[in-house]
């Protein structure tokens, strides 16, 4: 299903998705390192840059809303297949 949905995505949308998911994972990883390590502290600017990229590339609403928001045309085809 994921392959079917992502096939319809253009390169720009795919790049956006990849960038956003990578930024979210990086933020989570850095927050975990900051929380559990005693001597190492992540700089504020690192968080700011990653969050800036995450929101700057745009389409966060679609990301939060789900893939359905991204592939608005798919539901018609999925309903039709059912």
């Amino acid at each position, binding site marked *: 299903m994921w392959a079917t949905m992502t096939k319809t995505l253009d390169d720009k949308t795919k790049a*956006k998705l990849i*960038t956003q998911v990578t930024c979210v994972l990086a933020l989570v990883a850095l927050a975990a390192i900051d929380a559990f390590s005693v001597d190492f502290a992540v700089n*504020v600017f690192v*968080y700011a840059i990653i969050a*800036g990229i995450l929101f*700057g*590339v745009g389409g966060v609403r679609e990301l939060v809303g789900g893939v359905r928001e991204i592939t608005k045309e798919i539901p018609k085809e999925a309903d039709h297949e059912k």
Partner: protein
Amino acid sequence: MKNRLLNAIVKTPHYFISISKLVWRRLPYIALYTVAFAGLIGGAQYLYGQYDRQVIAKAPATNFINYTSFSVQNAREGEDVIFTLCRTHDQNYKVDGTRIVYIIPEGKSEPDKVAVHQKNFEGVIDSGNCQSYFIRNNEYYFKPGKYLITLNLDFKVKYDIGKTIYVKSEPFTIYPQPTGTNDVQAQLNILRQQIQDQQEIINRLSFQSDQSSSQGEANGTIGTNTPPTTQAVTPATGNSNNSGSAGNSGNTTPPPTVKPCRLNVLGIGLLC
């Protein structure tokens, strides 16, 4: 699955280029959001830091180091005094402080204490909860009586905020030595004087025995063992017990040589 993986690997440079183009195209928005988030997170950190600083400044010192017990063992005059400090602490703080020894005059109570000794010190709190320390006899000489010790400690916590803690021991007693004079030092001086007197006697006796043996040989009275006397004997006139004293005046006896000897008195090595 294998095809999908191969496909992904082949398309990776393509995705990399697409992502780079996307980031480059959206750079102004990225910069704007970066500055906004930096301000937001920095501001939140600053506000939290100020709040935390106030909380720590208002917290009592016992929140960081709390002394639960300060006991001092009774001792005798001339001995080292041992005291034990028990405390809880969340870090091994570096402390510097002042230790004051008070004496409580006989018949008086704690409020009438008098300071007799003060020492500044520095150190790091050990990891354990209880630690014993010494006040050496050469550091302060405790005469018989009742005493009290206080500690005033300064240390720094988070944000370099200074804290001070004051702790007081229970009164303890120094008892006199059980035998002879109370003053151990006086006893030692008496013993030293006795040793010196004995040493002089030994020196005189050994000199006399050397003198008598050398003069006996010169007069041909070899083998006569005249016992040395404690009476005054001069080297030139000879011994009165010796029958050959008439011949002594003409003798050119060599000067007596004092043989070096070593005595071990009370564990102290003395040269004769």
